[in-house]
């Protein structure tokens, strides 16, 4: 059980930050936790969330309300204890030195903050393209600004930062600097586009998958993705994988 150390805090429209006192294993950037949102059998299965940050015994996640489970999570209060499994899965490679480009879309920006902090701690330069639908859904960008060497915010409607999707902006960002690696998390179509651009420019790319998970611990084979090396379970072989090996049409 993990206890909330504060009330869920609305950090953007429909997005809540949850902060847990965490005495379990220390998570790595890109790993996730799996939460049983209530005690009964409905909703039944756990909900997976990327670790937004972990330091000094506090683990934070950002939850976008999209359905019953996520809404329920936003209604807990300080002191409540939740059934949390984790940290789970394989995270991002944390490169030492050089320059890394982070590309996030919507709630998929969440794991990138923790990654940015880890990269900066290793002396790696970090540029982050932070994509969102509109200004109202941009969360915790001041925290990103503090750690990233460069932060480019983009919104679909141009209400914050530059207008356009991250895929629209990416070629320009890549033209403007040399990157040793790209790490991305967001909707499948976005990550597919980012992977295509990265592959065409011969930059290694890691993606963090957010497909539908069953158990989250590798037992059910429900989250399998098709790769050039055969089936892989997103929950235990990922969620972070080499984007270039994924057969993206299997995720449509």
């Amino acid at each position, binding site marked *: 059980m993990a206890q909330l150390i504060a009330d869920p805090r609305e950090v953007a429209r429909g997005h809540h930050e949850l902060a847990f006192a965490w005495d379990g294993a220390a998570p790595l950037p890109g790993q996730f936790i799996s939460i049983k949102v209530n005690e009964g059998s409905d909703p*039944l299965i756990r909900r997976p969330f990327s670790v937004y940050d972990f330091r000094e015994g506090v683990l934070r996640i950002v939850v976008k309300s999209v359905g019953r489970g996520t809404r329920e999570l936003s209604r807990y209060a300080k002191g409540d204890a939740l059934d949390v*499994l984790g940290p789970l899965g394989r995270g991002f490679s944390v490169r030492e030195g050089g320059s890394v480009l982070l590309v996030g879309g919507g709630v998929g920006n969440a794991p990138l903050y923790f990654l940015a902090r880890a990269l900066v701690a290793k002396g790696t330069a970090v540029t982050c393209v932070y994509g969102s639908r509109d200004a109202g859904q941009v969360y915790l960008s001041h925290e990103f600004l503090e750690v990233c060497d460069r932060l480019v915010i983009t919104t679909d409607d141009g209400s914050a930062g530059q207008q356009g999707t991250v895929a629209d902006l990416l070629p320009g960002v890549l033209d403007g600097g040399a990157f040793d690696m790209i790490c991305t998390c967001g909707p499948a179509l976005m990550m597919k586009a980012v992977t295509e651009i990265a592959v065409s420019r011969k930059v290694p790319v890691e993606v963090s998958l957010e497909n*539908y998970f069953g*158990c989250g611990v*590798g*037992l*059910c084979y429900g989250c399998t993705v*098709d790769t050039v090396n055969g089936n892989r379970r997103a929950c235990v072989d990922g969620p972070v994988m080499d984007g270039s090996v994924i057969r993206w049409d299997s995720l449509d």
Partner: protein
Amino acid sequence: MNTSVSIGSLTLRNPVTVASGTAGYGEELSGYCDIARLGAIFTKGLSIEPRPGNRGPRILETPSGMLNSIGLENVGIGKFLSQKMPFLREKGATVIPNVAGHSVDENVELCRVLSETPGVAALELNVSCPNVKEGGMAFGRSVPTFTALVTAVRKVATVPLIVKLSPNVTDVTEFARAAKDCGADAVSAVNTFLGMKIDIRKGKPHFLNKVAGLSGPAIRPIALRIVYEMCARVDIPVIAIGGIGSIEDVLEFLMAGACAVSIGTMTLVDPRAPISCVERLEDYMHTTGVSDVREIIGRAQTA
């Protein structure tokens, strides 16, 4: 205190097992408990060749349950024997492979090879697989097809044979009786109930296979009724499956007459659920003064 139960010539250290397809090959589960302490592990349905499973969505939550359309993704018998069995044996698990061939011949071959494999405690024959020779209808849905399969497999299975029944028939008990007549040592009941989901936005079935298997607490009362009726009418050991997750559920099914239970979907929800049921069963026996678990089995049949 005795928690052990017998299934034919097989003795399980306790009646709490993990259901096929929800335990993988024990590797992940061993991160959450000592798998040697479980009554048994039923491993993922096996075929001769590796199977990639179904494309498209494979899991969907439903009220108190879930639909799955995994399509029997598995490593194939070769890799199972060379990579999965050694791990399970080293951990001291009681291993019951789930045999999921798509023809009588494939099932016979699998059972022959597995029977000769050291460490295989028993076999579970999954009759919910499509029979490719007969237009893909599951073996477990017609008595003659079922009987032909179980009879053929029985001839080569030299370890205890458990037949896992499909609930997608009018009277599951009829199949339990047929299994007994063919010489099966036990039956496990039940597999998933066929269900469906339609995506109203797209106006088409959610799963590419159209139908999918329903499991979890949603099916528990139906599974309990089936097990209760079966235990009353057929003299064969029954391993109960269907939405079991807590000690209360375990006790209900034992009292209904099952000699053991399998935890499936609830293992997916909480991989610690099976070991917790083992521990809670011991606590229950201790506090209620039950010295032998067999005193609980069938209690509700005679009441």
